[in-house]
């Protein structure tokens, strides 16, 4: 039993040594013919019947793989030796050691044809760069824009924040509810009101703001629009209760222009 174990241990050591040898030939660019392929194949064959567990079989496969890579290297080596570029590396090294620097330099200069390249600025690129420079904002101004100033923490009032438009005076939903109440109060005939009569306001800005809010009233189910195509009039009709579910199949967008001219015509009509 112990003799088998001893043979196995010896075999593993052998295979590890073979792997190391093949790897060093590969990595250090040594002569691959230093590896005696026949001897190694014999070693692999000798120990192969001893291997029974997966770990040992993997070691055997790795050895075969490394040996195959070395044989490939030997084939490349032979090919290289047969080319005109092959010169014995030891001979080259000896030559390089013996030759003075001046001679080595002369040899190189005879086989050197340096690339000719230019790096020159053109009139066009100069003109472009001047244009860029003229449009470039001075550094202190650019830095000023991006600098964040540290300020002391303080207190402010609700009115001040509304004034600075940081927060809205009222929450949007509250505002929308109030707008809906206003619509319900304003409706006249047949529980509906003409669109322009509802959104129209003394100033154009205010009219646009009311048209904007009205669009949300319709979208969120607080009201609906009715179009009289013959008279080319649009009416807005509030619901008694907001409708939560909108029928998507029948949903349609209705663009209504609120231009300054429309507002002016409406205002003149009101005055009349």
């Amino acid at each position, binding site marked *: 039993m112990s003799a088998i174990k001893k043979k196995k241990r010896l075999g593993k050591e052998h295979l590890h040594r073979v792997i190391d040898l093949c790897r060093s030939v590969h990595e250090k660019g040594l002569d691959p013919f230093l590896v005696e392929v026949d001897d190694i194949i014999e070693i692999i064959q000798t120990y192969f019947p001893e291997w029974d567990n997966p770990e040992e079989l993997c070691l055997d496969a790795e050895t075969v793989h490394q040996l195959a890579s070395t044989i490939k290297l030997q084939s490349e080596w032979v090919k290289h030796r047969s080319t005109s570029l092959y010169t014995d590396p030891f001979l080259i090294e000896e030559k390089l050691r013996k030759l003075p620097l001046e001679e080595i330099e002369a*040899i190189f200069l005879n086989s050197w044809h340096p690339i000719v390249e*230019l790096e020159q600025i053109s009139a066009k690129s100069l003109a472009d760069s001047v244009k860029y420079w003229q449009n470039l904002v001075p550094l202190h101004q650019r830095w000023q824009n991006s600098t964040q100033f540290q300020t002391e923490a303080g207190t402010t009032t609700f009115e001040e924040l509304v004034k600075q438009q940081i927060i809205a005076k009222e929450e949007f939903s509250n505002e929308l509810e109030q707008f809906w109440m206003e619509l319900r109060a304003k409706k006249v005939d047949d529980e509906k009101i003409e669109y322009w009569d509802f959104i129209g306001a003394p100033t154009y800005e205010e009219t646009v703001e009311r048209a904007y809010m009205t669009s949300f009233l319709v979208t969120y189910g607080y009201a609906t629009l009715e179009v009289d195509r013959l008279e080319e009039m649009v009416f807005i009709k509030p619901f008694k209760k907001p409708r939560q579910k909108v029928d998507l199949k029948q949903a349609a967008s209705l663009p209504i222009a609120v231009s300054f001219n429309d507002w002016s015509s409406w205002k003149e009509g009101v005055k009349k």
Partner: protein
Amino acid sequence: MRKKTYYATQIKRAAHLLFFKSHRKPGMKGWELKKKLGASYPRILALLNSNLDKLDLQVKTIFEEGVPETKPTQEQLDRARFYVTLRGSITSKESKMMGWRIDDIAGLTVTIATVIAKKGRAPREEVERLLRDKLPNWRVSSNIDRYIRAGYIDEDEKGNLYLDWRTRAEVEEKTLLDLLMTK
């Protein structure tokens, strides 16, 4: 445009494209020249080459897969890189004007020759050991780094040196080895 005028204009364009550096590396790829000069770019480059002859310059083609044994195909030309190089050689005085010291050039020769002799890959330590024979220790490593930066050689992850694009474009490897062996 008449044929003669067309070629004269295209030769000028080709000269601008090859002389002026537009990428990190000098020269241009075949497909780039095709885009800018048209499908007849090999003919335009041949004409430029004969014009450059008077100035001791040449258009050099470096193929990706090494020099083809037969006439290169259109695909091989498109993948190749074209440079303008010196046709003849330069003197030691001229090389000094280009910013190269005698020991820089000798060190480069030793490096290139060792890499070629070692079948294209030589351990950096081995090259450094060889250079230390004639160069001060502190210059050896910095010189190799300089050759790497210039594109003459490169280093792989295992610390082996191999020839890079500039050596392939500028150095006649066979002439270099032959001259070394005859000394």
